[in-house]
């Protein structure tokens, strides 16, 4: 049966050299929500995203993305997904607008169609004035915004973002948050990984904390705080960071 949920992950298992990186991971995302995947380094966040895109084949479990079975129909699924990767991979040889044009071609879009979409994408990224600037001249924040705009070139139903604000200064982070909030308001479904608790608290309607390849807590940020980081003796409310540390331990990971 094809579900209306944009993403279903069931009992996912992935081993590398016999060592389980994903160990029975399950979660679903509802249409139009921003869902956060939190966890310490090495918890399995990036491996999960690789499985969702069909770039890694799980050893067990089931993945359904936008009604399509992954990895079997991964290529079809990717046509309707936008991805912001953890590491910058913009084309340094191209201008800002050319990056969007060339990327749109990978989706089989005609040059005329992409050109029609480019002004709105540049406006969204706040890069209209830099359309013909070389990508090399952009700041870190601008590059991230261009990468986000590039992920929207195919007008995706689902956006996948792997640590979208890692390495950015506070101003640049805020601009990305505004962009993501605008996309959720417009009805896009978003899956993001992060280890910034303030980012998750601000953007995500629901989130899951994963550790050692399985989900150890899941719910709305306020629920998780209520459950795992109760009000302190002085009456101050707890926060998501306390939840995270309470659940994943204080030991250094790597």
């Amino acid at each position, binding site marked *: 049966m094809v579900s209306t949920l944009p993403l279903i992950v069931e009992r996912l298992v992935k081993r*590398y050299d016999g060592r389980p990186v994903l160990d029975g991971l399950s979660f679903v995302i509802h249409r139009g929500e921003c869902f956060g995947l939190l966890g310490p380094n090495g918890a399995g966040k990036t491996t999960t995203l*690789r499985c969702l*895109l069909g*770039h*890694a*084949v799980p050893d067990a479990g089931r993945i359904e993305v936008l009604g399509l079975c992954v990895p079997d129909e991964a*290529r*079809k699924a*990717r*046509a309707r*997904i936008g*991805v912001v*990767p953890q*590491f*910058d*991979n*913009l*084309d*340094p*040889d*191209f201008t800002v607008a*050319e990056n969007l044009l*060339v*990327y749109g*071609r*990978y*989706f*089989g879009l005609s040059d005329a169609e992409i050109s029609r979409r480019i002004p709105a994408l540049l406006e969204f990224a706040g890069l209209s004035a830099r359309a013909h600037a070389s990508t090399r001249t952009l700041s870190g924040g601008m590059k991230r915004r261009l990468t986000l705009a590039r992920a929207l070139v*195919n007008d995706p139903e689902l956006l996948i973002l792997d640590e979208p604000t890692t390495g950015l200064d506070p101003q640049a982070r805020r601009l990305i948050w505004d962009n993501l909030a605008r996309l959720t308001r417009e009805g896009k479904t978003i899956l993001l990984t992060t280890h910034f608790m303030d980012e998750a608290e601000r953007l995500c309607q629901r989130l899951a904390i994963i550790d050692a390849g399985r989900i150890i807590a899941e719910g709305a940020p306020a629920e998780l705080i209520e459950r795992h980081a109760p009000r302190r003796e002085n009456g101050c409310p707890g926060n998501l960071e306390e939840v995270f540390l309470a659940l994943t331990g204080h030991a250094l990971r790597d």
Partner: protein
Amino acid sequence: MELTWGMLAVWRRNCFVWRKLALPSLLGNLADPLIYLFGLGYGLGAYLPPIAGVPYFAFLATGTVAAATMNAASFEALYSAFARMQVQRTWEGILNAPVSLADIVAGECLWAATKASISGVAILIVIALLGYAQSPWAVLAVPAIFLVGLAFGALGLIATARAPSYDFFMYYFTLFITPMTLVCGVFFPAERLPAAVQAVAAWLPLYHAVALVRPLIFGQWPAEAVWHVIYLVAVTVAAFAVAYRLARRRLLG
């Protein structure tokens, strides 16, 4: 393995970059073979008798077309493709679109062959301007040059898919490309070599490239033309399959 229109989008991307730097790139690809050709062809050629009925310069020039095509395809499939795969993470970006890894490897191979053909054909034009390619049938050398580019593009991509860093490519050139250039009939007929070396040379791809391209430029039908074509097609297909498998192991775990 899944090949689609996506491979043309990959080819187009590389072509787009090349067009921005076409002139310096073309000069870079041409300068080296032409310096050797004129230096050795005129300098050394003055002391040498004709080979197989043609002046040494013409003999060397036609061999240079094959060697320059090999070199251009190899550089593109090694250094440039490695930059896109590893350093710039361009492949990673493309894989997030509905393009398969097979499309990317095939697009890279097609592009390496295209860029190599531009070099090979440019030297062919120089030869024609000097009056050594007078038959209109010499245009048949163009598809042969493209096939040579495909074979060396696919072979180079094997090394790229395995390379830990750029340094690795030194081995490819010093252990494979350079010795091949000396034993496959580019500078002198391979028949001059000891029988054992000849036997090995006859199985090297550049040997077939030279055996195909040289007579075609002179307007002659190459001896055993079908065998040379089958050999180069087989190398292309087999090398592509290996390169794809290695790239898969490297990028999609």
